């Protein structure tokens, strides 16, 4: 599983990245986490409000700092 955190480097994006790391650790699943800061890559996902969370190429959430539990739910649902 590959999880990407899209964000141009604002504080909210860092918070989401941290929450994602915690969520993956707690979920017990193996996932690769990548922080995407390149604006062109973010645009390719069609995302207009950051931070956004992408799992295996699918945009799961935009413009929101998800809680650790919400991210775990998304990982499980995937």
């Amino acid at each position, binding site marked *: 599983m590959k999880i990407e955190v899209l*964000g*141009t*480097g*604002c*504080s*909210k*994006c860092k918070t989401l990245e941290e929450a994602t790391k915690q969520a993956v650790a707690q979920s017990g699943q193996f996932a690769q986490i990548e922080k995407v800061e390149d*604006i*062109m890559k*973010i*645009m390719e996902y*069609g*995302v*207009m*409000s*950051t931070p956004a969370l992408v799992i295996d190429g699918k945009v799961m959430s*935009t*413009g*929101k700092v998800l*809680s650790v539990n919400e991210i775990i739910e998304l990982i499980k649902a995937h």
Partner: protein
Amino acid sequence: MWQESVNILVYEWLKMAYGERLSDALNFFIYDTVKILFLLTTIIFAVTLLRSYFSTEKVRVYLSKRHEYTGNILAALFGIITPFCSCSAIPLFLGFLQARIPLGVTFSYLISAPLNNEIAIAMLLTMFGWKVAALYIGFGLLVAIIGGIIIGRLGLEKEILIEVKPLEGELNVDEEKIAFKTRLKDAYDYTLNILQKIWLYVLIGVGAGAFIHGYVPTEFITSIAGGDNPFAVPLATLLGVPMYSNAAGVMPLIEVLTSKGMLMGTALSFMMAITALSLPEAMILKRIMSLKLIAIFFGTVTLGIIGVGYLFNALL
């Protein structure tokens, strides 16, 4: 009801003398803080809940089918009801252009969205009532619409430093079904988050306001920010720029200043400059726009805001 409770607290429980500067200032401070924090929570919660039904993605689909003028007007209106954060300014800007939305229409949105942010609207409603809030929003829309049309007419497309590839095919947004309960919870979390960020600024703002209320003579304020000073409006606009994102702290100050003789147009210009002209946003936008375009963008908005201030002062 609030005023009476505060009176009892200050004059009876704390046994402070009525009509003295210190007790008056303290009374004002407690009353204002409680009132503001309560109303702020309610309004931000309501606005956030309402906004959860509008996303920038939906707005983009809608705007991509419009032309100049109607596009500018709609873009400015959408700026009120969609959430905006300056950290999203770049993806939003490029996303609009990708959808072939004209540059001027995109700018109308980019001017209106930060101007009509939830904290500013909540503070305005709380401190000045709905009439001033409506004037602020109305004149803000005017600046956004006209500013966008002017920028659109200048043919500045080449001033964008990144090549924007238009999106292929039809734009579509998957309609997400979110339960009302989830929306309520999201709005609650968001409101709490905002309050944690701004409560200290509100306290400082009200504290400074209470000080002015009790200690600074009215004549002093009138001479600087009242009708006697013809440069009050541009001065207020320039002063507003470095106060970015501190609408929560500055609005209580403005309330006191207006009660002490600051003209309402000058106050409106000040408020608009605080929300619309943001240096951090300019720094962020520099990554994708030439300095020339940023200067034109900020210059147009500044002139618009100063115009609103003078116009309003002249009318009233």
